[in-house]
C-alpha cells in the first residue's frame, strides 16, 4: 500500500504558472511547502530553436502525463465527439506551461469583473445572453490590483502603463484600470512591421500600444534580455529571458529552504477525513510507488481540466459525487476562450516576420470589453486585437493560398516562394461567457493509462460569442487593409475543445450554491482546500489569463499565510 510520508504544512499539486507563484509567499511566511510536479526540471539546453519539435511534435513528449489524459470534447450532450487532439495544449515540468507559453501578461480590464452589473446598468438586464450563468466577480479590479502589481514585479513583466493612479499615458492602454505604478521593465521593442500596424491603427483613430509580456526587455533579476530569435512560441527560452516560474518565483521560494520540489509525481486523489470533511493530504505515484503526503492544507494548482478531474476522482462518503461537489458545481461554468474567427492578411511586400516572438506586437483595445457603445449591437463584450512578429519555415510554407493558387505543385511552390513572408495572422481574444450547458465532467469511456477517466468537455460557442467574433473580425480586417494588405481571409468560429485558455469548473464567488470556491480561493465545502488557476475565474475577459491566475494564486497564498491558524487549524 501507499507509503506514508512525513506531514507538511502545505502541499501544492502542480508547480506551473500558478503553483509556482503561490509557493513563494508561503515559503517566505515560513511555511513548509511540498510541491508535487508531474514533470521534470528542464534546462536551457532543452530549449533548442527547433520548429518541428516544438510546434509540430508537442515537445517535450517524454514522460508527459498531460498527453495521456487529453480531454475529450463534444459540442453538446447529444452531439458526436470531436476528433481527439493528438497533443495536449499544456505541458508538465517544473514551471509547467509557463516554460513555453507566449508570456503575454495582461491584467483584466475593470469591466471583466462586473459584466452583469455593468451590462445591466448601461443596457438593461435583458442584454445578458440567455442561458448564461455569468455572475459578477466577488470583488472588482481594485481588490486584485495589489496582487497584479506584486506578480508583475516578482515574475518580471515588461510593458507600457496606460493608467497610473488615474493619470492616462497615451503610450499605453487607455482602457486599463488604474495601477499603482508602471511595469518593472519597459515594453519589448517593436519591429518595422508592428510599427507600421501601429501607424495604421492611429490613422483609424484607434490607440495602439505594445502589449505586456513576462519576457525581459532588459536584464532583470540577473537574467538577460530577450534575444528575439523567433522560437518563443511553444518553445522554452535558452537564455531564461522568458519569466516562467521555473526561473523566477520557484527558485526564489527554494532559496528559503521551505519549498521541497518533488518531480515525476503524479497525483491521483485528494484524501478526506470522513468525519470532519477536511482534506488530509494527497495520494501520488512516483516511479511506480504509491505515496501518501499528509498536509494541513492542500492547494490544487494543476490546470483547469486536471483540477476538475482530481476533484471528481476524489470520491468519499463525505463527498460521494467528488470532492467539493456536494453542491454539484464542480465542472460548471466552463469556458474555452474564444480565440477563433481569425483574420489572415496578405501584403504585397515582405514583412520580415521571421524573427521576434508572439509577445512582440501591437495591441488595440478599442473594441475590447465594453470600451465601445453596444447600444445598437446584438452582443456584449469585445475583443483584443493583436498583431505580432512570429514566423518559422514549416508554418510559413503551410500558409493559406488565399484562393490564389492550388495547394501543391509548381503553381503552389511559386506562390509560397513569393508570399511566405507576406502574410500575417492576427490573434483575437474575445469575451467568452459561461452557459448552463457548457461544462466539464468525467468521460464515461476514455481513460488514462492508470485507468482513471479523462476530463470530458461539453461546450460550444453561443450566439453572443459568434456575433462578437464576426464583429471583431471586421475590425481586424479593417486594420490590416489600412496597413496596406491586399487580401484578408476570415476563419471560422472554431470549437471549444481543449485549450491553453480554459476557465471555470471551480468558479469563485460568495454564493456557495453557484460557486465552488469562496472569494479567497478556498472551497466553500472544504475549508482547508484551496484551488489555484483559471478554473476559479468566472469571466474570461479579452486577454490572456495567466497573469490574472497568478495574481489570484498569490492572493490565495498570502491569505493562507496570514490566516494560517484559522484555515489549517481545523
Amino acid at each position: 500500500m501507499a507509503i506514508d510520508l512525513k506531514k507538511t504544512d502545505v502541499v501544492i499539486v502542480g508547480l506551473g504558472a500558478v503553483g509556482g507563484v503561490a509557493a513563494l509567499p508561503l515559503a517566505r511566511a515560513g511555511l513548509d511547502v511540498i510541491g508535487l510536479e508531474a514533470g521534470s526540471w528542464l534546462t536551457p539546453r532543452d530549449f533548442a530553436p527547433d520548429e518541428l519539435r516544438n510546434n509540430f511534435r508537442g515537445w517535450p513528449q517524454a514522460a508527459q502525463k498531460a498527453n495521456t489524459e487529453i480531454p475529450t470534447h463534444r459540442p453538446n450532450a447529444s452531439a458526436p465527439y470531436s476528433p481527439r487532439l493528438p497533443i495536449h495544449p499544456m505541458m508538465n515540468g517544473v514551471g509547467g506551461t509557463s516554460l513555453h507559453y507566449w508570456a503575454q501578461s495582461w491584467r483584466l480590464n475593470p469591466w471583466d469583473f462586473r459584466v452583469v452589473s455593468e451590462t445591466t446598468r448601461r443596457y438593461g438586464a435583458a442584454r445578458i445572453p440567455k442561458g448564461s450563468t455569468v455572475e459578477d466577480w466577488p470583488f472588482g479590479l481594485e481588490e486584485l490590483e495589489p496582487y497584479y502589481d506584486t506578480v508583475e514585479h516578482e515574475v518580471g513583466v515588461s510593458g507600457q502603463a496606460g493608467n497610473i493612479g488615474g493619470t492616462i499615458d497615451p503610450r499605453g492602454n487607455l482602457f486599463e484600470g488604474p495601477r499603482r505604478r508602471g511595469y518593472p521593465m519597459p515594453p519589448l521593442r517593436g519591429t518595422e512591421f508592428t510599427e507600421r500596424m501601429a501607424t495604421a491603427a492611429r490613422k483609424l483613430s484607434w490607440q495602439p500600444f505594445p502589449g505586456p509580456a513576462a519576457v525581459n526587455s532588459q536584464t532583470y533579476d540577473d537574467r538577460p534580455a530577450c534575444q528575439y530569435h523567433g522560437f518563443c512560441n511553444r518553445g522554452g527560452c535558452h537564455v531564461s529571458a522568458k519569466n516562467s516560474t521555473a526561473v523566477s518565483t520557484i527558485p526564489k521560494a527554494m532559496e528559503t529552504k521551505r519549498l521541497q520540489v518533488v518531480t515525476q509525481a503524479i497525483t491521483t486523489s485528494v484524501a478526506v477525513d470522513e468525519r470532519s470533511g477536511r482534506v488530509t493530504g494527497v495520494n501520488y505515484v512516483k516511479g511506480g510507488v504509491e505515496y501518501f503526503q499528509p498536509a494541513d492544507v492542500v492547494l490544487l494548482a494543476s490546470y483547469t481540466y486536471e483540477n476538475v478531474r482530481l476533484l471528481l476522482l476524489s470520491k468519499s462518503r463525505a463527498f460521494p459525487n467528488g470532492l467539493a461537489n456536494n453542491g454539484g458545481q464542480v465542472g460548471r461554468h466552463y469556458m474555452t476562450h474564444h480565440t477563433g474567427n481569425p483574420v489572415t492578411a496578405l501584403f504585397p511586400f515582405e514583412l520580415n516576420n521571421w524573427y521576434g516572438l508572439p509577445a512582440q506586437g501591437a495591441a488595440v483595445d478599442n473594441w475590447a470589453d465594453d470600451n465601445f457603445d453596444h447600444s445598437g449591437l446584438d452582443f456584449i463584450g469585445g475583443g483584443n486585437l493583436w498583431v505580432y512578429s512570429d514566423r518559422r519555415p514549416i508554418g510559413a510554407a503551410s500558409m493559406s493560398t488565399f484562393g490564389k493558387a492550388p495547394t501543391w505543385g509548381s503553381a503552389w511552390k511559386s506562390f509560397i516562394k513569393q508570399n511566405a513572408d507576406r502574410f500575417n495572422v492576427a490573434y483575437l481574444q474575445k469575451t467568452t461567457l459561461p452557459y448552463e450547458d457548457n461544462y466539464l465532467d468525467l468521460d464515461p469511456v476514455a481513460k488514462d493509462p492508470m485507468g482513471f477517466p479523462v476530463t470530458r468537455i461539453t461546450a460550444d460557442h453561443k450566439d453572443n460569442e459568434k456575433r462578437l467574433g464576426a464583429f471583431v473580425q471586421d475590425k481586424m480586417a479593417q486594420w490590416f487593409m489600412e496597413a496596406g494588405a491586399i487580401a484578408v481571409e476570415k476563419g471560422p468560429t472554431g470549437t471549444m475543445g481543449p485549450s491553453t485558455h480554459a476557465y471555470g469548473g471551480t468558479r469563485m464567488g460568495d454564493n456557495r450554491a453557484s460557486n465552488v470556491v469562496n472569494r479567497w480561493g478556498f472551497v466553500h465545502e472544504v475549508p482547508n482546500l484551496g484551488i489555484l488557476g483559471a478554473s476559479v475565474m468566472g469571466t474570461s475577459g479579452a486577454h490572456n489569463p495567466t497573469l490574472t491566475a497568478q495574481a489570484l494564486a498569490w492572493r490565495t497564498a498570502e491569505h493562507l499565510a496570514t490566516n494560517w491558524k484559522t484555515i489549517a487549524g481545523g
Partner: protein
Amino acid sequence: MASETQDPPHGVSRRDLFKTVGAGAAAAVAGAPLAPSAAAAQAHPAAAPQLEALETLTATEADILEAVCARLIPTDENGPGAAEARAAHYIDRALTGPLRASRDAYAAGLAAIDVYAQAAKGAPFVKLSPRDQDAVLTDMERNVATGFMPNAATFFNLVRTHTIQGTFCDPYYGGNANFVGWDLIGYPGLRMTVDAQEQRMSAPKAVRKSAYEEAMFAGKGSAKGGDHGHRP
C-alpha cells in the same frame, strides 16, 4: 532546367541515389539548377560515399513516396523541390519514431496509389508521366480516387503535411537537405540573437545552420550532436 516534360526524379530509382547523399547529387540527377550550397558541396566532394539505409519503408514504397513528393513540391524553374530536400528520406526516418503511428497508413496508402494508378492510368505510379502522376494526385486530393482507407484525401493530406515538414524542417531531421527549403521561401536562417536592424522589413542575409550546430544543443560526446532525448 527541369520542366513538366522532362524525366522526373523517379527516372532514377531511390536505390541508385542512396550511395551519395545530398542535394548536389539529387539536384544533378533531377536536372535542377544548383543552389550555391549545392555547388559548394560539389566543389568539395565527400571523401567517401555515405552509406544509408531505408529505416522502415520498403524499396517499392520508397520509390512511390519519392515520386509523390517530387510532384507535390516539384523541381522546376523556381529551383530544387522536395526531391532535393530529401523529404522522403525525412519521412522514412520519422516513421520509425515520432510518426510511427502513421506507418500502417503509409503501407496501405502507397500500395493504394499504385493500384489506383494502374486502374486509372494503366501503369504503376512511378512509371507514369508527370502529367498522369498529377492527375492521380488530384484525384486523391479531391477524394475521388478509390481504394484508400479511410479515404484518398486523408492520405493525400497526410503525405502533403509530411512532405512540407521534410522540405522545410531543420536539416537535423534528414530533410531540407542543404537548406533548399529555407532558401526557397527566403527564410534568413537561424540567428541566436536578432537585433532591431535585423527586424526591419527587408530580411537580413541568409545564414544556413541547424539548431544542433549550436554548441549548447549539440549532445555531449558527439561532434554531430546526440539524440537530445528524442528520436529524429
